[in-house]
């Protein structure tokens, strides 16, 4: 977030070098839905690189349910589950489900560490109990010299989504 001495590092970034010390902010609007039975959606946020490499950045689910029962429904985010969720631990990146309205997700530099500079898709998938499922994708670049913001919008289970990357 701060323009400190970090710009010196990212300025040196090349294709092969890792994107260092970048941070990302993802603004996700969860739509208010007037339905008889509403449950907050499960949401997964991940980066997909060229060649199918993936890194999960955040997962919102019923984390506090007794006996880890909330994990039973992680597979409802079926794209994330197949590509990333089922083969990685989410302990460090998971949190509780969030309420309708604008939600801010801050991805620390540590969560992006080791990812090579280059083009990625930032993918947000939402799945709601007795509701639908939606995936929104945004093209993002790691290792850029200046801050950049990508925007996209969902139609049903997700509202606007914006990702801002700051070197």
């Amino acid at each position, binding site marked *: 977030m701060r323009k400190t001495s970090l710009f010196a590092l990212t300025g040196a970034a090349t294709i092969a070098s890792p994107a260092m010390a970048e941070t990302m902010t993802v603004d996700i609007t969860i739509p208010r839905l007037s339905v008889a039975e509403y449950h907050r959606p499960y949401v997964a946020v991940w980066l997909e690189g060229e060649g199918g490499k993936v890194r999960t950045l955040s997962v919102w689910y019923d984390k506090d349910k007794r006996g*880890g029962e909330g994990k039973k429904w*992680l597979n409802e985010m*079926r794209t994330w589950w*197949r590509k990333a969720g089922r083969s990685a631990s989410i302990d460090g990146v998971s949190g509780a489900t969030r309420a309708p309205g604008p939600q801010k997700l801050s991805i620390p530099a540590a969560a992006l560490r080791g990812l090579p500079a280059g083009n990625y898709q930032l993918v947000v998938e939402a799945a709601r109990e007795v509701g639908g499922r939606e995936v929104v994708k945004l093209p993002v670049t790691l290792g850029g010299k200046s801050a950049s913001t990508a925007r996209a919008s969902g139609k049903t289970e997700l509202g606007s989504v914006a990702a801002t990357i700051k070197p």
Partner: protein
Amino acid sequence: MKMRSRLGARAALLAVSLAAVLPGSAQAHRAWFLPSETILSGEDAWITVDGAISNDLFYPNHFPLGPDGVTVVKPDGSAGAIENAARGKIRSTFDLHLDQPGTWKIGNMRSGVFGRYKLNGEQQRLPRGAQADEIEKLIPSGATDIEIRENVMRNEFFVTLGAPTDAVFTPSGKGLEMVPVTHPNDLVANEEGVFRFLIDGKPAAGVELTAILGGGRYANQPVEVKATSDAKGEVRLAWPQPGMYWLEAETKDKNTSVPGATVRGLGYVTTLEVMAP
């Protein structure tokens, strides 16, 4: 109906099952297992499974399949067990408690003998469900034009809790088997599924295969894909749409083990869940 009274319920069951598995059989009855889910998350999970023999997928309306003879292989290779098994009039059902992460294999393997002969100019059949060691007794002296066909048939499906594993795909080297190239619990409609077929452990070229989408009752034409395995025994399937598919592969050869059999019919059936991308 006649057969049922003559041979008893058990023989009738075998008769129907064998008819369903006979490659090239005039009766197109399909033997199927339908798992409630194949891709699961959580610490442990339960699925429930239906099994039936019917024409339409996946609607039970004819005869139950199993639950006798259904075996379970856990991801670590040990044997699991089905629970709450019941055999209905037209459908069997059982549950499976997935208490170990990885890929599970559930299904059955059956072998049988099918035979016919002429006696005094009249065509006769061996009772269906006849065992290999009974054949000599069952064919009367004076019979001519004896044809004995051996059948080896697998029907199995795969379910994964958590991350997929490969241990249950190790072939046994007996009969027609499928070794996935694309993991069966990693199928998605916009990517091809690739599967390798083996006969007695060796790549099986020329195996004909059909994958049929369930839910055909509400379509004028069934949604299906056909393919034939290449020299490596591989087939590539492009899925017309997501859904639960019933896949049947069949072929025959002359590598018989039953005395007097001239043909060995080989069948393989699996149920594949293809996810929406």
